[in-house]
């Protein structure tokens, strides 16, 4: 779903994040409040301007009085909430999640077109992933280079579905979707046709710009040359959903 429009009469709640007293609108999520207050919290599937997916689980936080962990992107703030974003347990889980992403497909940064401009790579550095402790799956996925302007490399896809959501919610084309289950899951264009043969793709490139890794890139780029720009997204999203 597209992000809800801000309501006129929403009450303000007070809460603490990492010991810091804060106030927020009651319709905000924890991650939004963190972003507003420059509290670093990792995320991959969450992107300001797109609907909430809650898939990557990197933004998990601890709430006082609760045993289970909560995804900051899909949990609304509440009065008196006491949130911790950095604990040893969270750091351990986050690092493991990033390692699992690396182990699942072939993310070889050094030869990737998105090297040094990749959210997964940056996150790995921040989470202290100096090596991957989990055995690599070594699965080989096909590439789809049939589109005149763009290229899809499933080997570098982390299934965050940002492409699916931006195409549906912002561009309105819904070219992208997800097919399969578990580790066989793949993003597809139309009914799993080659991207270049898609009848719905408008060639706008929004999916490429929001992709956090080197899975969706421009044709003609060499190693390290793919720099993405997502600044258009919050602006377009607000215009699309303006009352």
């Amino acid at each position, binding site marked *: 779903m597209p992000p809800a429009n801000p309501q006129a009469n929403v009450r303000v709640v007070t809460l603490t994040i990492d010991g810091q007293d804060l106030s927020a609108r009651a319709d905000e999520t924890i991650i939004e409040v963190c972003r507003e207050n420059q509290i670093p919290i990792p995320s991959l599937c969450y992107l300001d301007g797109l609907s909430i997916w809650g898939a990557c689980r990197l933004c998990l936080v601890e709430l006082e009085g609760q045993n289970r962990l909560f995804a900051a992107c899909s949990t609304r703030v509440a009065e008196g909430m006491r949130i911790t974003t950095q604990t040893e347990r969270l750091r351990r889980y986050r690092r493991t999640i990033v390692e699992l992403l690396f182990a699942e497909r072939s993310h070889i940064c050094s*030869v990737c077109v998105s090297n040094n401009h990749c959210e997964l790579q940056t996150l790995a550095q921040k989470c202290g992933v100096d090596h991957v402790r989990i055995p690599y799956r070594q699965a080989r996925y096909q590439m789809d280079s049939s589109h005149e302007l763009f290229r899809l490399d499933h080997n570098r896809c982390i299934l965050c579905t940002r492409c699916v959501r931006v195409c549906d919610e912002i561009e309105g084309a819904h070219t992208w979707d997800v097919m399969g289950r578990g580790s066989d899951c793949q993003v597809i264009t139309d009914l799993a046709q080659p991207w270049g043969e898609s009848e719905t793709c408008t060639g706008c490139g929004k999916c490429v710009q929001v992709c956090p890794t080197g899975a969706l890139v421009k044709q*003609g780029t*060499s*190693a390290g040359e793919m720099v993405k720009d997502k600044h258009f997204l919050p602006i377009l999203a607000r215009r699309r959903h303006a009352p």
Partner: protein
Amino acid sequence: MSRTITIEPVTRIEGHARISLQLGDRGEVQDARFHLTQFRGFEKFCEGRPYREMPALTARTCGICPVSHILAANKACDHLLAVSIPPTAEKLRRIINLAQLTQSHALSFFHLSSPDLLLGWDSDPATRNIFGVMRQAPALAKDGIRLRQIGQTIIETLGGKKIHPTWVVPGGVSEALTPEKREAMLKLLPEGLEIAKRTYAFFKTLVPKFKDEAANFGTRDTLFLSLVSPEGNLEHYDGFLRLKDARGHLLEDKVPTWEYERMVGEAVEDFSYMKFPYYKAQGYPAGVYRVGPLARLNNANACGTPYADVALAEFHMLQESGPIASSFHYHYARLVEIIYALEMMDRLLKDPDILDTRVRARARSNRDAGIGVAEAPRGTLMHHYKIDDNGLVTWVNLIIATGHNNLAMNQAIRQVAEAYVDGNQLREGMLNRVEAVIRCFDPCLSCASHAFGQMPMLIELLDTSGQVVHRLSRD
């Protein structure tokens, strides 16, 4: 009773290898083989990738000469794009190639081979290394390290990093040169040239001491293959293929690089992960040829820079006439090439067009096959790709400089073993000479590894009479 001597691992080379010497009943050498024992698989796992990734992917074959792979791969991509790259981009590519030649040759001469030359073939193996050289000739060791640093610094200045830079791209280079970077590089070159000239002068005094080695280290007749410029001069980046025989006659000349398959055939043997390229017109295994500094200097009419041309003239005086035959003189040729590289970099950096900002041609793939050939420090490097309509690689063939020398290296170790190894009174120094002849070629084995289908692996257990009592094999 016949027996086999195995030298494993061969030390002070790049990569992993072993040498086996088969001795006869009287302890004489009957056969010698050079085995490449590591397997990489680049030609296979690059299939399915976009051709624009090939420079970054194939650069990973090596940490010593990645620039060579980057250049050959990008030239193959230029060929796929069917573009002529801007002249400034070509000059910049030449500079980074020469910088790598400098650092790689410095590594080979100072770090890997100078311990043999300075400390002696029979010296204690525990100190026969760069640290031993540091103790005995600290100034020389320092020169070697500094020369290598100068080469690496120029690579870093141009390419952004010392190893595996991504600055060279299909169609040219990604960024133009700035005046500050040019000045920084120009400042390094005079010191480098002084070191190179000093080392060259010193090595000339050493050469007469190694008459015996020069006479036995791979002197048998082979052909010589290299690129030469359109004028027939020393060339490392582009030009045409030239093949000369041991008497100096040109067998092939002005051959466009994309016709390499007409000249070069590739054979495989089950005892090594390295291919055995040969000159097709003479067949396998007769068509033995050498590549690298020795071949380049033998093939070149001139270097085209002042000091290097003097050194080239002196190089040709090592022998009465004809191409220099002894593989021992690879060392000499390497030092001549370092001088050339430093002089030529200086000339290119002072070129009035070198700061031009048009450094990249843009195009889509316009061919379904691309061939890129460049001179790596160790010799002629060939990259050949085929792609589908979407620009994904369907087939890769890499002929690595070290691979070209494979037949010649096998020939050379046999010659050295026959000259020095006495199976009845085996000494470490004898075997070190067998290793040393391999070091003359400065092989890069991690680059040259290849598997043809499933390599058979065979382990045999022999009893004291040489009878096979157990055999394990993988077909």
